[in-house]
């Protein structure tokens, strides 16, 4: 601490270390939060179900997605990335997960929403297994923090079925 620059360096280094410590504390405070999100997913309409020229089935859905994810937002939450995926099993693959829609929720005010939309991403099977297929719709979310650990969770809703024939 004998010179101006030495003290300046000491202050700078120590202040950055303490900043890291309070950011770690902020990240740990996220564990105190017990989230209680709710979601309702509905298939409003099956637009079409077709076999593509390359032999794979494809379906176009109209979805109604409504969710209340306000309890996920803590003081340390930067944004929440949410996506809807369809899950089903085939003889070829034990589990197929196809992402149908995603979005970014920037703040708590936008976290309670309802949206009706066609699937944002194409729902194409590896093969031709979609006729009469039972599937689940899952709503996944990633709570992206300002500092620290990202929390990931999901809600699974079962009981959806695709038509028996091509539309």
């Amino acid at each position, binding site marked *: 601490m004998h*010179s101006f620059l030495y*003290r300046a360096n000491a202050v700078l280094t120590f*202040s950055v270390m303490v900043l890291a410590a*309070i950011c770690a504390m902020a990240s740990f405070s996220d564990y105190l939060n017990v989230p209680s999100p709710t979601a309702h997913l509905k298939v409003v309409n099956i637009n079409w179900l077709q076999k593509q020229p390359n032999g794979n089935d494809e379906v176009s859905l109209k979805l109604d997605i409504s969710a209340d994810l306000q309890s996920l937002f803590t*003081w340390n939450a930067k944004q929440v990335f949410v996506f809807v995926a369809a899950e089903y099993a085939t003889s070829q693959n034990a589990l197929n997960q196809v992402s149908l829609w995603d979005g970014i929720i920037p703040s708590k005010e936008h976290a309670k929403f309802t949206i009706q939309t066609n699937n944002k991403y194409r729902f194409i099977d590896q093969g031709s297994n979609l006729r009469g297929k039972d599937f689940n719709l899952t709503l996944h979310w990633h709570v992206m923090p300002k500092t620290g650990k990202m929390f990931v969770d999901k809600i699974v809703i079962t009981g959806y079925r695709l038509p028996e024939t091509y539309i």
Partner: protein
Amino acid sequence: MILMVSSNFFVILKHLICFCSVQTKQIGLSHTLPMDWQGQKLAELLMQIILGVFAVAAFVAGYSMGSFQTMLLIYAGGVGVTTLFIVPNWPFFNRHPLNWLDPVEVERHPKPQALTSKKKSSSKHK
């Protein structure tokens, strides 16, 4: 946010350097003599205490207000206050100055010539 803190810090540093170069009297900041030992100890202690207090205050304020930005702003203010208190060579850091011998006095006590006694005297000085 860290960029803001460090740029805030460097702005303050620039102003302090200008301020120090203006002060050439011993009454004000001393940049010809370094800080004395007690002052250095005090400077380190002050730095740890002030930053610690501001860090705790920033976290508590940020958590209770639910605002991450509040926490960072209070802490940045704390870094600025710490810089202001301990980086310049304030007079209260020089209350226990080291009394070096007058050059005339030194000539009256010449250094011993023998090798062994030189080693003894250098270990005494430590």
